[in-house]
């Protein structure tokens, strides 16, 4: 025959954000460490090699921070004017940066003075990057040019003058040493090939381009500008794949998660949005205190570093998961106990009897199964249950009522036990989703304990609190009804064709709750 059917616990929709894998993942960071820089943080770049230091470009300085250090472990401050776009080489040993005066400087991480200085740009250089072969540097400047430099002899190799406005962002392909893309304020993103003297692909973003990003495979290009983030399929010759408009203000920076499954975009609207790269839907959103200018993720998403316009650098570290393992683990039976006898093959005359699989039942269900109603109620009145999952408590009260034994379960309690029930009622009675069940329970309690009222000051006090609560609720409902009446009047005066418009009104169910308490 059918087994015991556990009590159906009423589930209520959780208000606010849905809990998904992504929200869990992106919320699993510690509270951010805030570091004050000298000016707006325009660029944050992680070293691709351990120990994953990161370079922060702010004002005329470049700070190198260690992973958990809050003080810079190294500073490059030999800039006459604002520095831009400090970027590590793939091996993490060289750093290149542009500057307001049009120079491009190459630093050794261990050194202090620049190794190379590339002179040729006439205006501020906002973007620099190493090409995939590590021996060249690409730079884009406000003089509308894009230049390719050779590191060993610090010579300019190529100059592209195809942009018609400031070049503010760029990115070199990680696979092909000859390919790189730049985005400009002329609303275009161009892909250049060092083997030819002109751009190979040009796409129209529609807004001044603030940031570009090439996927590791090089097949997809992401550009950000204005409020839009656009994804382009480069293998199809620059076809627009998807256009995302999820920010209220200009999107300033882009970043890929280490797995490549999520795309992050930071914006002046103080938000970082996380997109899935399969569906291009926003799966999570992170809030910051100021407009975001730069964003970087460490290896394995261990750290999120965000630079903001107010010069504050926010560093969030992932919570370590080692904590759970440290708990003293109960010794469990060995694996072989579970598989014991499982491999036995049935012989000819054997009769195989399967042990019925045991269904796991909650403790209160076990009590209810054996008709121990008071005990079941006691269990769900434990503070751990009433605070965390009041719906379980309410469901059990409802089930007891359905079985017709609620009065039995509530009766015969001493001062401590009854005050526990009353505490729960006081806390939850006014919640509309629990009210119908709890009002009924409250009535039963009053009926049962009316004769002994006055014997315990503790319980009497609780009853008074309950009474006050009910009176307050009644006042509330009355006011609500008055407001509704006024609104009805207003709507009635409005001439409306649609006579079928229906106004849902909240139930005035609590009104019947007038009770005389001692």
């Amino acid at each position: 025959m059918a087994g015991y059917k556990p009590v159906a616990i009423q589930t209520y929709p959780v208000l606010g954000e849905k809990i998904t894998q992504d929200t869990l993942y992106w919320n699993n960071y510690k509270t951010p460490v805030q570091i004050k820089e000298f000016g707006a943080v325009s660029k944050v770049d992680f070293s691709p090699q351990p120990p994953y230091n990161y370079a922060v470009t702010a004002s005329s300085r470049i700070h190198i921070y260690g992973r958990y250090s809050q003080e810079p472990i190294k500073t490059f401050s030999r800039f006459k004017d604002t520095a831009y776009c400090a970027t590590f080489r793939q091996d993490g040993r060289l750093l290149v940066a542009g500057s307001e005066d049009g120079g491009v400087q190459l630093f050794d991480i261990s050194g202090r003075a620049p190794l190379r200085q590339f002179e040729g740009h006439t205006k501020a250089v906002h973007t620099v990057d190493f090409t995939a072969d590590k021996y060249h540097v690409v730079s884009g400047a406000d003089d509308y040019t894009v230049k390719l430099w050779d590191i060993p002899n610090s010579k300019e190799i190529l100059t592209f003058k195809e942009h018609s406005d400031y070049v503010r962002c760029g990115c070199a392909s990680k696979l092909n040493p000859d390919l790189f893309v730049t985005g400009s304020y002329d609303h275009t993103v161009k892909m250049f090939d060092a083997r030819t003297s002109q751009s190979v692909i040009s796409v129209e973003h529609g807004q001044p381009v603030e940031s570009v990003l090439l996927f590791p495979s090089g097949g997809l290009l992401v550009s950000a500008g204005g409020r839009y983030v656009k994804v382009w399929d480069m293998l199809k010759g620059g076809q627009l794949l998807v256009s995302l408009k999820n920010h209220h203000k200009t999107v300033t920076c882009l970043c890929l998660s280490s797995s490549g499954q999520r795309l992050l975009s930071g914006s002046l609207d103080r938000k970082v949005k996380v997109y899935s790269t399969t569906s291009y839907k926003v799966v999570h959103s992170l809030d910051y205190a100021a407009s975001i200018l730069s964003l970087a993720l460490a290896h394995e998403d261990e750290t999120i570093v965000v630079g903001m316009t107010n010069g504050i650098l926010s560093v969030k570290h992932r919570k370590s998961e080692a904590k759970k393992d440290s708990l003293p683990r109960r010794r469990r039976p060995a694996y072989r106990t579970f598989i014991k006898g499982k491999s036995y093959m049935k012989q000819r005359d054997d009769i195989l009897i399967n042990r019925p699989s045991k269904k796991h039942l909650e403790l209160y269900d076990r009590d209810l199964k054996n008709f121990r109603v008071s005990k079941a109620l006691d269990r769900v009145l434990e503070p751990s249950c009433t605070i965390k999952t009041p719906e379980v408590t309410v469901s059990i009260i409802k089930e007891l009522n359905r079985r017709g034994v609620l009065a039995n379960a509530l009766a015969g309690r001493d001062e401590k036990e009854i005050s526990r029930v009353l505490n729960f009622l006081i806390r939850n009675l006014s919640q509309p989703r629990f009210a119908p069940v709890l009002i009924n329970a409250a009535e039963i309690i009053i009926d049962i304990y009316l004769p002994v009222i006055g014997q315990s000051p503790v319980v009497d006090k609780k009853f008074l609190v309950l009474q006050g609560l009910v009176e307050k609720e009644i006042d509330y409902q009355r006011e609500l009804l008055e407001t509704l009446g006024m609104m009805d009047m207003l709507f009635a005066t409005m001439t409306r064709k649609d006579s079928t418009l229906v106004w849902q009104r909240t139930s005035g169910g609590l009104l019947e709750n007038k009770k005389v308490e001692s």
Partner: protein
Amino acid sequence: MRAPPGTRDGAGVCVLCEEGDTPQARGTAPWGARPLPRLSPAGRLRGPGGRAHVSRIGWALGRLEDGPGVDVYATAVALPRGPSFFRTESYIFCVSGDFVKVYSTATEECVHILQGHRNLVTGIQLNPNNHLQLYSCSFDGTIKLWDYVDGILIKTFIVGHKLHALFTVAHAEDSVFVTINKEKPDIFQLVSVKLPKSSSQEIESKELSFVLDYINQSPKYIAFGNEGEYVAAVRDFSLSVYFFKKKTTSRFTLSSSRNKKHAKNNFTCVACHPKEDCIATGHKDGKIRLWRNFDDDKKYTYTCLHWHHDMVMDLAFSVTGTSLLSGGRESVLVEWRDAAEKNKEFLPRLGATIEHISVSPAGDLFCTSHSDNKIIVIHRNLEASAVIQGLVKDSNIFTGLMIDPRTKALVLNGKPGHLQFYSLQSDKQLYNLDIVQQEYINDYGLIQIELTKAAFGCYGNWLATVEQRQEKETELELQMKLWMYNKKTQGFVLNTKVNMPHEDHITALCFCNAEKSENPTLVTASKDGHFKVWILTDDSDIYKKAVGWTCDFVGSYHKYQATNCCFSEDGSLLAVSFEEIVTIWDSETWELKCTFCQRAGKIRHLCFGRLTCSKYLLGATENGILCCWNLLSCALEWSAKLNVRVMEPDLNSENIAAISHSSMGSDLFVFKPSEPRPLYIQKNISREEVQWGVFVPRDVPESFTSESYRWLNRSQFYFLTKSQSLLTLSTKSPEEKLTPTSKQLLAEESLPTTPFYFILGKHRQQQDEKLNAALENELVQLPLTENIPAINELLHTPAHVLPSASFLCSMFVNSLLLSKESKSAEEIPDDVDMEEEKESDDSDEENDFTEKVQDTDNTDLGEDIIHQLSKSEEKELRKFRKVDYSWITAL
């Protein structure tokens, strides 16, 4: 009858007439005057799938096309008024109305239906001296002796009184005990009936000897103990024990019975220990008392066992007497070991109140019958091994009758909180769908969650159900659930649960079943004055694919209660009735299109016409007006005075069936909305009020040519009366259509074309003349193989009930040899042959006859086979030896 004044009913069409209103109406009712013999005792109840076929009427008149008869199809109330029990663990018997059903415990199939009683069967007992025979007694005053292995009636003893219960005792070989009612209606006597030995089939046995007086009629109140040394009977507060040897009666009255406080300890059942002098009695307060030393009026003692909190329904001792079984409303079978309160075992959650418990003679199996039309076979270690389940009887059918579009099963309320799917074709419950999904507490006075509404949508892909529980006026718990059909698991899976979809009772629920509709739509109408439109929406995100139902639109009309809702066939219009007013809404924009108001009472039923009549909308009001509106002209087309209780449209045609109720009985009208005359009227289909009806599409369309039965061509109409009888209209005997599984292997179609078949089958026909010539003047004319009962029997009987092949062989050969002698001796086969010659083309008719013949022949065979071959048969054999069979070689 005329359209109410003020309507624009220009033509003045009047369609449906109340009885006696127009002579024409009476004239068209072809069945108005026909007696419906089986139906008249209202609420004849049958066991699991029990059914009587009334359409025998048509057969008796010899005309098949005579017209539909009313056919008691399956009724709800259960089982056995008498106990069910076993023999050798392989059969289980249960009383079901006029029949006794024999089930196989292994396969749960019905092996035989023993029919012959003309009234309710009240008791069955195995013949203690021959365990292949079964006694049964009935209200018709007869005791019948059956050979249940072959399903043959052996003897009938006519007693003459209404028999209420039957008991047999091993040592009293020639007598049985019955309960009869002598003078007053409430006073019953236990008498012993001497069964005279005689070879004739019907024997008068009027020799009654009085045993006990003032007893209760139910067999549960009487038990024979210790191999028939005494009989114990209980009534109210007293236990009487009659000792056969001493011929004395001792009476024990419970002392507390005089005290009104403890007035609940009435006796409810009694059982006797098979070996010792010990009587167990069950009481209304749930106690079980074990009585000992009751042969002494002074020294008697009793001990009490108490577990049940409600009335003990039945008690039974195991064969050895070591354990006692008890059951009651708790639906828990309790086994008391060694008559001790400590040692008890339980088999809980049996689903419904235990009505009877019986134990197999060998003691390996127990069996319980339940109030929900179910028998459970339980192994000795308290494990249920088989369930025989019929149409579950529920006191309230809220959901009405529905047809599952996938399985074509009838769907209605089943067990508490369940929907049952019942196959009309195989007369079996397919499965129960647990809707409420909560532990069922069977307790008196408890307000249960009730499944009130259900509807199928989108070709059976969706099922919507509504359950409610109302403890007080203000506390209504409502829940709507939407179930999706899962093709993989072949069942319904809960998709969406809506708490309190409305603030008051939901009165109607309907899906939009239009073919073109891409989005499933559901409409609920409620007493809170709103109707809500629910649509399926896509809930899927990047993590999972999901669909769910959300409310799309809420409509109301001047705060009237919404009472009915209905979609037009193409799904473009929604009609919602608000008390007296019908509103029509556009299903695209949910705009109110128009309203119809007849001011003729609240609308009780509402439906759109279909196919060619889709421009009509029909509404039936509470005070007996049936209205038909034309949706194109927005005017009343016609109206008629008819107190409609059930209005059901046929999904395969334009026809609509309406059942009206008056004090005379219920009448059926079938009509097309477009035509002024009803197609068919059947007066008095049932004495009681009909609650629900449904059209069931036929698998194979019939082809009635007659005007008035053409509506039955594509669908069949089933209806449920207030007493839970499920009835249908049919023209044929249901045996033909509703073939039990054991009969499905019908010989005609499925005989393999083996050489043997050619010899005996087709070739027989062709070479009849040749054979005749060869036999010269011999009058041997072998009947067709299909009509030889032995062959039929061999082919139709399930293999597991057949005797060994060696035994069959002689019988089989014998049957082939019988010809001349048997024919001259028996007249019935002669008739058969003549009939066959006449109507050999009409296979249906033939079947009916052959089956009939088979029954009568079987009785002969049963006795014949035991004897040696008679002289005439030997002669016959010799003749056959001489016959030239050379033609076989020519094959």
